[in-house]
């Protein structure tokens, strides 16, 4: 089996931080190289999980929009939410998933503000649950 990208990045980061950085001539260079190593470990994590996170998050937002649309009194927002619920991820490229995610987040912000204004507490709760889960998924591990 060939080495996978996350393995290559992880091992390269270890070599950069553990073997090469200490050989550099000053604290600025050592610090800079070490931080680049940390960024490589983040990139390794994201390589493995990036598409999965975005597909899950986009799916969660669409499901929430489908359930929320009937409760929305504001006609313009209702249409916007229903439209967003009907979209789909047409590619697993990160750039395409990000583009979908951006549009869905815009709608989510409008919907959350509306729920707060109208006192739709069950909807607010569900949005916060989604946001908490999203924040959890996107957290990066240092070790």
């Amino acid at each position, binding site marked *: 089996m060939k080495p996978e990208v996350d393995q290559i990045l992880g091992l390269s980061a270890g070599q950069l931080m553990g073997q090469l950085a200490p050989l550099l001539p000053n604290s600025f260079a050592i610090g*800079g190289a070490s931080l680049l190593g940390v960024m490589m470990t983040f990139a390794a994590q994201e390589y493995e999980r990036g598409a999965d996170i975005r597909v899950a998050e986009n799916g969660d937002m669409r499901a929430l929009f489908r359930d929320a649309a009937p409760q929305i009194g504001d006609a313009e927002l209702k249409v916007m939410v229903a439209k967003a619920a009907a979209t789909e991820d047409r590619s697993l490229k990160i750039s395409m998933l990000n583009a979908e995610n951006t549009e869905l987040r815009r709608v989510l912000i409008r919907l959350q503000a509306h729920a707060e204004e109208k006192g739709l507490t069950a909807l607010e709760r569900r949005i*916060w649950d989604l946001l908490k889960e*999203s924040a959890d998924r996107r957290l990066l591990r240092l070790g």
Partner: protein
Amino acid sequence: MSDDITARLQTYLAKKLEQPALHVSDLARIPGGASRETYRFRARYGDVERALILRRDPPASLIETDRTTEFRAYQAFHKLGLPVPEPVALELEGAVLDRPFFVMEEITGCEVASILSPDPYASHREKIGKQFWSVLGQIAKADVAAIGLSDFEGARDPKEAWRHEVARWEKVIDEDEREPQPIARAAIRWLKRNPPPPAQKIGVVHGDYRTGNFLFNASGDIRAILDWEMAHLGDPLEDLGWALDPLWAHGDPSHPAGLIARADAIGIWEAESGLKADPTALAWWETFASLKGLAIWISAACEYAEGRNTDAVNAFSGWFCLAFHNKVLAERLSA
């Protein structure tokens, strides 16, 4: 390039310090954040050898900060006897070193904690902790007019301090977000709906008082509070909320800044400042701190993504720190 800086710095300082024979040597760049380029160097004249620091504006800054503010804060608090490096010279024109800069004393023989280190203070945790919260209390206690900083940017009206800061950081998010930020937007709405009580006083807010922004020596003495570039006038609880933020806790928010227990930290701050850390007000400022963090990280991500400042610190801030504060705020606001 560093030879070029050395020669120009030597010419400048010789004139500025009225020491025609002044000689600059050993110029070396050191880590100092993404908002200034930081160099250490030596200046020799007569029998004097001075260890100095050069802080120069980068081509683009993480947050547009005023180096005059930073320099004047160093002047004011150095004069007051706080552990702050002595400022030496401020140059606002780009003619000397292409960009504005200032020079200050280097505090030698010290280290600075990395926020990634699990236990940077080790056996000195207690000793450093007492000093850290005490110095913050002293900053809060300082009389703005008496130390000559009444004209600093920020709020003048204690009732408006919170509003001024929310507006400031909301503007940063408006200008720099490259993708919608639902948690930041929800936090802004929450902060506006639930304002804190008026500030007990208008004081100097350091703006970035935290672990990683002070120097300590091998005996566990804090020798210098650094990075005053975001200093402004406002509610002293703003600094307390920022210093207590979980991002700076080295993994243990019950011991903020990786130092002593939270209740002890707040007790020391209250005793030193003469102010009360009302729990409701402090909770608001802690929520604000995480929102302010998000704004800074969003700005860092923007600088990096748009190629204006590709220092890896900006990539780290715009990714790791952003994700961290999104989680902190989501948990806090959904509780």
